[in-house]
């Protein structure tokens, strides 16, 4: 079978799977509905792209650019979340890894399907942008000038995201929770690094640093030509400033850099196929020395053949709470890290050191447990147990709060204050509720981990 036929087949199968999932249709519905909230109103509500604290005059080109910037920055984690948790997250690797088909062709086919799905959502957003523009733009309504900046900014970022998914899926580490952490770091870097170099003259090389493609249009198009802009939320000053979006996207090297990013995405997918490691059951870890002894679970207690059948617990709810508490903190590593996080609470400024440290650990522990509790393949078995789902979910939330409280105890005792306990309890409860809801919807811990990591960063930096 030729490589082209393999790639085409991989793409077709992925697209077929997408088309039969409700997630795709939800995405295509949400994208246009969400467009209204991606453009700030005069009172500052909605997602803001602001220049010097002022909203820009909303011309057709600026509208398209603002939509594109919101997609390529703030909504990129949502797109990543969608790709990693959709119906194509499971593939028959047991058979396709031993098939004669080219690995590069298979991955390029899947990459193309992912990219097409994201671009379909962008098409829906473009249509919504036209409808919005028809109603709100200042000056002439120019559909082409809405679509062009929107696609120039957002499309390469989305295509790059599809490639990044292939790259992370290619290696065992990237397939696990650490893959989400890697994406989170890359996403943060993709927003911070281009701002650092934004004051340098526009060129192809400088614009290639800007994967999200948002810096140059804002800098080159703003009246002052500097990087005094903000994306997201915050206080808005009255009055609007003109933003020359057409000049922004025409900055030297910008358009060519956006096309180059598409080429980089294809190259990244090919690279992913070259570094691809087949799936295999992880070998029992052999970590040398002290670490091995610290993390080793040791042999199980000797079996007693005459052990009687377990009886019903005196308090099934308390037993469930204890079990959930243990499972959130499964493994010795979690417990060692919990001790470190608790000790960090002894440092001054619990709000910015001890509390985020404990919360970060909890994000990983509880999202993993929420995910395994709600895994579709396990749900059928769990559903037949004595414990009703609401009680099980409630116990998970209570056990998460308990972990947060335990880790805040040193800070509370050292300062003889209830504040650390209240803060840890409330953030722990909020994280647990979010994790539970997202795990229920997605059937895995991935979406919960991703969203909680982003919220954790907001909490840390606020």
């Amino acid at each position, binding site marked *: 079978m030729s490589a082209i036929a393999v790639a085409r087949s991989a793409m077709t199968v992925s697209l077929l799977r997408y088309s039969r999932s409700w997630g795709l249709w939800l995405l295509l519905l949400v994208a246009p509905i969400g467009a209204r909230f991606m453009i700030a109103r005069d009172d500052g509500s909605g997602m803001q792209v602001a220049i010097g604290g002022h909203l820009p005059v909303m011309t057709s080109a600026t509208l398209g650019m603002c939509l594109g910037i919101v997609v390529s920055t703030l909504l990129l984690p949502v797109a990543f979340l969608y790709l990693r948790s959709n119906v194509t997250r499971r593939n028959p690797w047991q058979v396709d890894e031993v098939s004669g088909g080219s690995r590069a062709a298979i991955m390029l086919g899947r990459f193309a399907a992912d990219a097409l799905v994201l671009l379909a959502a962008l098409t829906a957003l473009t249509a919504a942008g036209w409808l919005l523009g028809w109603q709100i733009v200042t000056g002439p309504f120019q559909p082409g000038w809405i679509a062009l900046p929107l696609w120039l900014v957002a499309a390469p970022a989305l295509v790059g995201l599809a490639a990044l998914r292939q790259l992370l899926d290619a290696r065992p580490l990237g397939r696990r929770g650490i893959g989400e952490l890697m994406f989170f770091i890359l996403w943060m870097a993709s927003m911070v690094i281009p701002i650092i170099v934004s004051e340098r003259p526009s060129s192809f090389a400088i614009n290639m640093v800007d994967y999200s493609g948002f810096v140059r249009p804002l800098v080159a198009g703003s009246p002052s030509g500097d990087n005094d802009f903000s994306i997201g939320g915050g206080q808005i000053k009255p009055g609007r400033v003109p933003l020359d979006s057409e000049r922004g996207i025409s900055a030297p090297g910008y358009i060519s850099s956006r096309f180059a990013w598409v080429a980089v995405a294809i190259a990244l997918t090919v690279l992913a196929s070259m570094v691809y490691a087949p799936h295999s*059951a*992880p*070998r*029992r870890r052999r970590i040398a020395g002290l670490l091995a002894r610290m993390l080793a*679970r*040791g*042999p*199980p*207690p*000797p*079996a*007693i*053949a*005459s*052990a*009687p*059948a*377990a*009886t*019903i*617990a*005196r308090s*099934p709810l308390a*037993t*469930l709470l*204890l*079990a*959930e508490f*243990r*499972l959130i903190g*499964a493994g010795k590593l979690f417990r060692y890290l919990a001790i470190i996080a608790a000790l960090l609470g002894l440092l001054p400024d619990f709000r910015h050191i001890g509390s985020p440290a404990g919360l970060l650990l909890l994000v990983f522990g509880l999202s*993993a447990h929420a995910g*395994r509790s709600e*895994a*579709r*393949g*396990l749900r*059928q*078995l*769990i*559903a*037949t*147990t*004595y*414990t*009703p789902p609401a009680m*099980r979910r409630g116990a998970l939330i209570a056990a998460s709060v308990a972990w947060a409280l335990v880790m805040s105890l040193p800070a509370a005792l050292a300062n003889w204050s209830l504040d650390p306990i209240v803060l840890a309890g409330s953030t722990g409860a909020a994280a647990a509720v979010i994790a539970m809801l997202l795990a229920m919807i997605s059937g895995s811990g991935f979406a919960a981990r991703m969203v909680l990591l982003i919220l954790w960063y907001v909490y840390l930096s606020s």
Partner: protein
Amino acid sequence: MSNLHLDAIGKTYGGKTIFNGVTIHVPIGLTLLTGPSGAGKSTLLRILATAEKPSRGKLSWKNTPLPAARRQLRRTLGYAPQAVDLPDDLTAREFAMHMAALKGLDLTAADAQFGAITSAINLHGDINQRIATFSGGMRRRLVFAQALLGEPELIILDEPTAELDDQTSGLLEALIVERAAKASVVMTTHASDQLTAHAAASWRVEGGQVTPT
């Protein structure tokens, strides 16, 4: 004597009738379920295990119809489905204790019982290992072991000995026969002399009907 009773049960998927008008009493002891692939054996087991609702008819547990008796039934149910997405990041023991907690069992006693069961099916040496390192046969035995935790009065096993060698199958079958002395055990399996000899009943699922053989 029977605790579980099915009255005119039917199941339809997307217009296709899997079975219809099935009326059976599940006896204490071992009941073997046979039939061709795709006949609806696993569907019937899922209905017995309350994992799926029938399209028609009613189930009763100790003379109380479901759903009123569902929690009462689940209190004393051991279920080992054919395909389970086990949490790879947990050890077998952690997973078993998770299931024990969900069954409302005392965890210390359940831990000891899990040790005894896994010892009897040659899995005990691996229970502190992560499930990710388990082979298909080990996973199958783990799912089987969690079904026996506590003292279930109704045990539903879907192909518990698939993927196992004869010797290991024999170990599982010995435990099944032992439990069948006091509980209702319904299972699908390939023909096994040891089990057939101890079976209190044998049903064949075929053509939308469940008939005693």
